[in-house]
């Protein structure tokens, strides 16, 4: 017998003996690669990945490097199917065929919008038919709509959302108004792109209700961009009822960069979706196409089982427990900051998940987006605080209003000290009569 044909088993990471849930010090250890000098209260942008998952990822990477042909023939497809199956259960999809894995929500948007563009090009949609999106849709998604929809002859309508916002009703009524505008002149609304949680400013949108309205008003397709969804808010495909739904797993579900899922409800139209990077598997369904887009590192897509194990075995209540604790703490911290600065929250707690918008003192003089970029860099470089800032233009007649908001987040690695650090930084600036005009260009 030739031993050379046998694959030497790789070391499996030792499962810790769990007599109780993960402790604070174990959590700090899992995230010890985070820069200790930084109050990291921007989990929303890039997420985080615990050391055990990074290790699991490295094992997959090594498997490929050892014998890539063997890996490709015998391991890759199985591994991705396993990940897709876990995601399908997590999000309550009907069938694993509905779940494709892609790099990120940006890629998912390109997939959905490309399909819309084809429909315009092929005459299925008329020139001037409408795509509706939120004014606060993510910058990349807006560009994607411009590249694929406007360029093919579609018209884009933005839903103006109030901010600060006080209730779901405010959002619902603006959305209805936008749909009316879309249907004016006998045109059809072909696509609605709805954020589950907007990025900036950050608000949880009542997607279930909006999808319902779309169905009532004859909107062809609904695409929910839930970049921040999974691990942050409730993600239930059956309940939400959208045609397409995407969420990043590297933001709030502890995956390494980067991985997202794109859910496509089984229907006649779903066969029109293709991954824009076309490879051998073209025509075999989006999930199969996405699982092979040429040679690359698929390890981030393969660690999903390890992530679920980590989350469910080590944290009380699993992902649900984490979500709840994140929400409760971020609201508590937000209220603490708003009180300290004598400002307010950007939305009521029930319209937040693991992030919340907190008004910054008006005296800081935030008068433009450029000011927020500079101030953010200032906090990063001089105070060791990483937090994204948002500029809200004052309405007509408003004087001395809050024009800047911080989007704070809470994830398992955060400590109260992170928020105290931020509170004190702002208070110090206020005390020193700092304004944004002092920041160099």
């Amino acid at each position, binding site marked *: *017998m*030739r031993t*050379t*044909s*046998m*694959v*030497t088993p790789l070391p499996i990471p030792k499962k810790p003996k769990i007599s109780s849930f993960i402790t604070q010090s174990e959590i700090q250890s899992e995230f010890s*690669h*985070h*820069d200790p000098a*930084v109050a990291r209260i*921007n989990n929303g*942008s*890039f997420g*985080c*990945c615990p050391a055990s998952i990074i290790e699991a990822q490295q094992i997959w990477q090594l498997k*490929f*490097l*050892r*014998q*890539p*042909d*063997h890996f*490709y*023939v015998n391991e890759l497809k199985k591994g991705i199917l396993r990940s897709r199956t876990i995601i399908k259960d997590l999000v309550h999809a009907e069938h694993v065929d509905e779940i494709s894995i892609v*790099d*990120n*929500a*940006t*890629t998912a*948007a*390109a997939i959905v919008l490309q399909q819309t563009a084809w429909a315009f*090009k092929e005459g299925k949609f008329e020139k001037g038919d409408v795509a509706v999106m939120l004014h606060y849709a993510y*910058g*990349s998604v807006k*560009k*994607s709509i*411009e*590249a*694929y929809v406007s360029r093919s002859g579609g018209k884009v309508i933005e839903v103006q959302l109030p901010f600060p916002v006080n209730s779901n009703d405010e959002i619902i009524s603006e959305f209805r108004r936008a749909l009316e505008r879309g249907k004016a002149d006998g045109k059809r609304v072909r696509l609605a792109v709805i954020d589950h949680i907007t990025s900036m400013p950050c608000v949880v949108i009542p997607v279930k209700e909006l999808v319902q309205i779309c169905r009532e008003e004859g909107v062809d397709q609904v695409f929910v961009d839930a970049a921040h969804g999974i691990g942050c808010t409730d993600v239930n495909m059956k309940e939400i009822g959208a045609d397409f739904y995407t969420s*990043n797993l*590297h933001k709030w579900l502890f995956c*390494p*960069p*980067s991985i997202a899922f794109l859910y496509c409800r089984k229907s006649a139209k779903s066969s029109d979706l293709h991954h*824009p*990077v*076309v*490879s*051998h598997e*073209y*025509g075999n369904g989006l999930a199969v196409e996405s699982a092979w*887009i*040429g*040679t*690359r*590192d698929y390890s*981030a897509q393969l660690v999903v089982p390890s992530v679920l194990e980590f989350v469910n075995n080590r944290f009380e209540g699993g992902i649900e427990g984490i979500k709840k604790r994140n929400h409760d703490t971020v609201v508590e911290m937000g209220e603490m900051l708003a009180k300290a600065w004598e400002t307010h929250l950007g939305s009521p707690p029930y319209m937040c998940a693991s992030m919340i918008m907190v008004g910054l003192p008006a005296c800081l003089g935030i008068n433009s987006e450029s000011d927020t970029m500079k101030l953010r860099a200032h906090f*990063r470089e001089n105070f060791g605080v*990483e937090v994204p800032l948002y500029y809200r233009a004052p309405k007509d007649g408003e004087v001395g209003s809050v024009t800047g908001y911080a989007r704070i987040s809470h994830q398992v690695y955060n400590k109260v000290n992170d928020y105290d650090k931020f509170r004190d930084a702002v208070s110090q600036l206020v005390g020193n009569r700092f304004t944004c005009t002092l920041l160099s260009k």
Partner: protein
Amino acid sequence: MEEDPRNGKATHHHYHHPHTPKKPRLIQFISEPEIRQEFSHHQSGVARINNGSFGSCPGSVLDAQKKWQLRFLQQPDDFCFNTLKKGILESRTVIKNLINADNVDDVSLVDNATTAAAIVLQHIGRQFAEGKFQKNDTVIMFHCAYQAVKKSIQAYVTPVGGSVIQVQLPFPVNSNEEIIREFRKGLERGKANGGRVRLAILDHITSMPSVVIPVCELIKICREECVDQVFVDGAHAIGSVLVDVKEIGADFYVSNLYKWFFSPPSVAFLYCGNSGIKCDVHHPVVSHEYGNGLPTESAWVGARDYSPQLVVPSILEFVNRFEGGIQGIMERNHDQVVKMGKMLAESWGTNLGSPPEMCASMIMVGLPARLCVTSEDDAIRLRSHLRVYHGIEVPVYYQAMKKGDSGPKDKDGCITGYVRISHQVYNTAEDYFKLRDAINQLLEDHNVCKMLPLEQKRYVYSLFYAFSCEIFCTKHQHLFHPFLSFFVLSFTTESSRKFVGSLRFHIKTRVICSLVTKK
């Protein structure tokens, strides 16, 4: 191979680089043990002679990559604001110098050649859809163009009215003229019904069968014949042949860095030299940077791991530890693969698929006719068999017999199967001896491809043989239980499955039974 001189031979025109970057004065070059160490993560015991498919990445570059990954994880916002763009620009600059491009703005980094093909073909598709190209305009390519590229044409060009002309690549091939002739014929067909040839897709080195294509000459012809745009798919090129984009003169040129240029999976560069065209070329994954030029768009396609794109400077450091740098590596790979190819062809009594000057670091070697490679299925079986039972990784190619029986022959018949062997710095002569001996062993055992099981069917064969053994063994129950346990294990552990499979081939059933009866 240990004895081979480290002096590169600058005999091959593929390797003469007019702009060799000045190499540091090294006290000594990388040693054999150091090379072993750099590739110690490769599975031992496997003769890895398929560098072409997935490439290879040395330990030092993997370490450099981990450092970049860690920097991102430590403080991702700071990384994306302050480090990422600079790092990618540095990588693009290294590439620009390597390929003799004029302007770093002409160089974008993407995941792989497959992504680059989507970019180019989406651009062409848009021209058709927006009426700039007409319905009887064509795209011309070789019949053996990479499958993903063909599918990309199917996705982006044919639905909007473009048609495709396929040029038959002669194989085995004897000279560049044979290819040029076929290509000219293809161009004529493209212009036959009054249409224009809007895009020519030329492989710099075809994948299967693998041959170096005379791209400079073909592009000259394209320009003479008013082909609008030329896209060179050089997936295998960089690190394998000289890539001088000015000399080649294509509008688009792509090459993977992870195949022959030691990058981790995965990164490729896409060169777009034609200023008239490149303003409307976009990355299909649209992000904030849409409209800011392809290099900038490609440098941000959403949050992801950009570390393979950032290690390019570290790769250059690595290759410069070899005498002659990347040029030296290319020359030595070429010399060795030709030498090994000739050794195999001689041992098997077969042929090479092309003359040495039409190869780079890979060469096609004919398989003995007696193996009966009569279909693609046979080729797959043989490849699996070599991987699973002999620890050899080598792609196998099926070449249908030519009409009129004019193809290459050995003493037993027509040669219809080829292996594509590769040579990279980690290979040794033993890798090729192993292949030589495995094929000779198959011939001695009178095995032909159709007798070799596909991996999934191994269970059935194992079951069949185990049962046969059981029947013969019932008189000898003391031997039945060990056999039964092997049989049961064959369904539970991969290694035991392979053992039972091996048993089938290396100990014929009647031998087992005669041993059993003797006892």
